[in-house]
């Protein structure tokens, strides 16, 4: 060997030996062991996702029947029955909203069912269609002209169908006197489309299931990455469109009460509570012992897991401190809502920083190279 290489090698060996002397005490790794990711995915598919879509199908059918009843005889009785059916369906959709990958993603279900306005959209003025807005102008125009553009991929289209439109047409202050044949038809068209879409997603899961449970990778677009990303995304929705933006966080304290989710149906707070409950249920695998939380424990991250679950409980407790309805509470109980917002922000950090870093999952759908 030429002298120069010998010198280099010697330096490197010495460097290594010196560093070896500083060996610190090892951390505890007793928790670490094999984890059956396939069993986790089977649990998610069979016990959570597929049954949730089946329930959604039922709820949408019941909603369809309730809308028919309300449309044929609009009165406070049929409207009250409709509100129950509506709340059931919307709450059930919040549970399903976490599964926005695979069939739901292909069907663009989330935009057509319950458009959030997109997180990459500035939430600034009251008139602009952002967050959980309702595009009443487009809706009324569609009704007047007996037309719709439901399949169009535009914000106006998303804001004129699904839960936002139902919520407005069924529960706005003059929903009963305003009912007429055209309006009835529009309502029926909306819910028929929701039926078609939910049926399609439920049916597609039958074939997608094997793809889902058969892929235990963690790269972008894999089931595990999707689960982590959806939890992070729904936390962002809870932080922005559900609570923070209506509260005026993005608008220097100017409150936008009417932009609360399902404002006219008056179930904004219930929906927010359901959101955190279903995030927790998704994260923990509904206590099955085969959830993402159990994966964390198997990775030696029991403390982080405990803290994430505890923070989810704190957010739920803070939401319980707010008195219904949320749109009023934004001003009358600013402190309570603001306290909730702060706890949500802490949870966002846990699920967008700590959680992905220990599961080697990237928060982002970009699939470019890294090093």
């Amino acid at each position, binding site marked *: 060997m030429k002298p120069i290489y010998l010198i280099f090698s010697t330096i490197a060996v010495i460097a290594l030996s010196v560093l070896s002397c500083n060996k610190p005490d090892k951390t505890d790794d007793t928790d670490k062991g094999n984890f059956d990711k396939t069993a986790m995915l089977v649990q998610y598919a069979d016990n959570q996702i597929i049954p949730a879509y089946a329930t959604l199908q039922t709820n949408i059918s019941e909603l369809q029947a309730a809308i028919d009843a309300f449309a044929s005889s609009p009165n406070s009785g049929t409207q009250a029955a409709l509100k129950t059916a509506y709340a059931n369906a919307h709450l059930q959709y919040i549970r399903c909203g976490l599964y926005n990958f695979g069939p739901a993603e292909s069907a663009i279900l989330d935009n057509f069912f319950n458009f959030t306005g997109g997180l990459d959209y500035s*939430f600034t003025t009251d008139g602009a269609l952002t967050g959980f807005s309702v595009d009443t102008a487009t809706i009324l125009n569609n009704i007047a002209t007996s037309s719709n553009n439901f399949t169009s991929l535009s914000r106006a289209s998303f804001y004129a169908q699904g839960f936002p439109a139902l919520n407005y047409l069924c529960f706005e202050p003059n929903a009963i006197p305003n009912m007429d044949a055209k309006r009835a038809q529009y309502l029926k068209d909306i819910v028929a489309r929701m039926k078609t879409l939910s049926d399609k997603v439920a049916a597609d899961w039958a074939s997608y299931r094997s793809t889902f449970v058969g892929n235990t990778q963690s790269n972008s677009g894999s089931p595990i990455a999707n689960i982590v990303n959806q939890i992070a995304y729904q936390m962002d929705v809870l932080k922005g469109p559900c609570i923070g933006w209506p509260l005026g966080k993005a608008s220097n304290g100017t409150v936008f009460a009417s932009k609360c989710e399902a404002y006219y149906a008056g179930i904004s707070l219930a929906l927010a509570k359901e959101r955190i409950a279903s995030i927790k249920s998704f994260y923990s695998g509904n206590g099955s012992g085969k959830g993402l939380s159990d994966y964390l424990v198997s990775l030696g991250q029991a403390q982080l897991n405990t803290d994430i679950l505890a923070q989810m409980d704190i957010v739920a407790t803070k939401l319980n401190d707010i008195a219904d309805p949320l749109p009023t509470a934004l001003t009358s109980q600013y402190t309570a809502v603001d306290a909730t917002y702060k706890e949500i922000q802490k949870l966002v950090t846990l699920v967008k*920083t700590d959680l992905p870093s220990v599961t080697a999952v990237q928060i982002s759908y970009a699939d470019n190279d890294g090093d």
Partner: protein
Amino acid sequence: MFPKIASQLHKPVSIAPIVTFRIVFGLLMFASIARFWYNGWINTLYVLPPFHFTYLGFEWVRPLGHTGMHLIFLCMGLSALMIMFGFLYRIATVIFFLCFTYVELIDVTTYLNHYYFISLVAFLLIWLPAHRHYSVDMRLWPHLRCLTVPRWCVGILRFQMAVVYVFAGIAKLYADWLFDAMPMRLWLPAKSHLPIVGPWMYELWVAYLFSWFGAVYDLFIAFFLLYRPTRPFAYFFVLVFHIATAIFFPAIGMFPFVMIANSLIFFSGSFHQRLQSFLPGYTSANALPSQVYSFAQAQLWSIGIGLYISFQLLFPFRYLLYPGHLFWHEEGYRFSWRVMLMEKTGNSFFTVKDSATQQQIEVNNAAFLTPLQEKMMSTQPDLIAKYAQHLAQQYQQRGMQQPQVYAQVYVSLNGQRSRLFVDTTVNLAAQKLGWQHYTWVLPYKP
């Protein structure tokens, strides 16, 4: 001593190694650019984002829009092919270097060490007569044919390869990597889907094996490649190592293949002549007239080479001039061959405040940045400050007076719990960007 080294540098050696290098480099670059285009990354990285994180001193670099960017990539692809075929080689290398470097300078958040490596190699190729044998240029202008080149022409490429490896190795000599198997112990359990080896990915000793093997490989592989008796054996390890990284970490893209192909530069001239003799249309080196390639102004070249080598050897150590934990502050982190070295994740909440009215707005990062930009910005101090300045500018345009920008940034390093990254009371928009230490980054607490 200097004249002796200089005469060694200019001693004629076979041109064959740099001819192979030119061919495989051109081919790989063409493939990389085609892949980049096919994946739609020209659009997602350089056309759609409304804002770009520019490099210090290169703030004037701007993307060229949809058509312009695609034309740039077309030029890059064509010049890569021209390099491969050795057609109008000098022009092709200059075009390739300029286009590639321009694209890399558009946005810091797309920085990758191997892109820096490609820029450097493209720069070196401009000066190397790698088209003087087995090329279209040689067919067109037979009198240009050369069989030998000054020794430094081969040596500088070997040096550049060795720099990548050795510095990547030195970078791994830190306690987390060696004694805690970080971040391998975080990354490997995500690879349990792999056939055969999958179940072992949960084993801690496997993470240690990967860490130590990686460090030892990077530190020593270049020397074993340089030393003729160990060379074939070392190249076998190059194959094993880079194929393994390609399987385990597919997200690193073309890098393993670039290193596998470019490591051939360590083989001898006779090896490369034999290799090239399998190529179509190759005429035996001795069958045709040729000249000895020599550079005018040998002394100037020696000085230039000396400067280049000094820069390459010193620049990666600039982090030593900064206080604080390198991985936390990332001062002197880029352009230093720190490849796949840490797991760093962050998220950030920015607030913009009107100096006059004290009105404040919480910023929705997604409205200003792409997911990739937001991810990169949230862990790198200079990008945080740059983004704060951008926000101040944006909100000034929206009517705010002297907007102040504050941020709550949380960062998790190597699997530790996330903690506050920058001083929440500091107006980040007012912070100067530069080479100085950023005091508004909170100190790292282990």
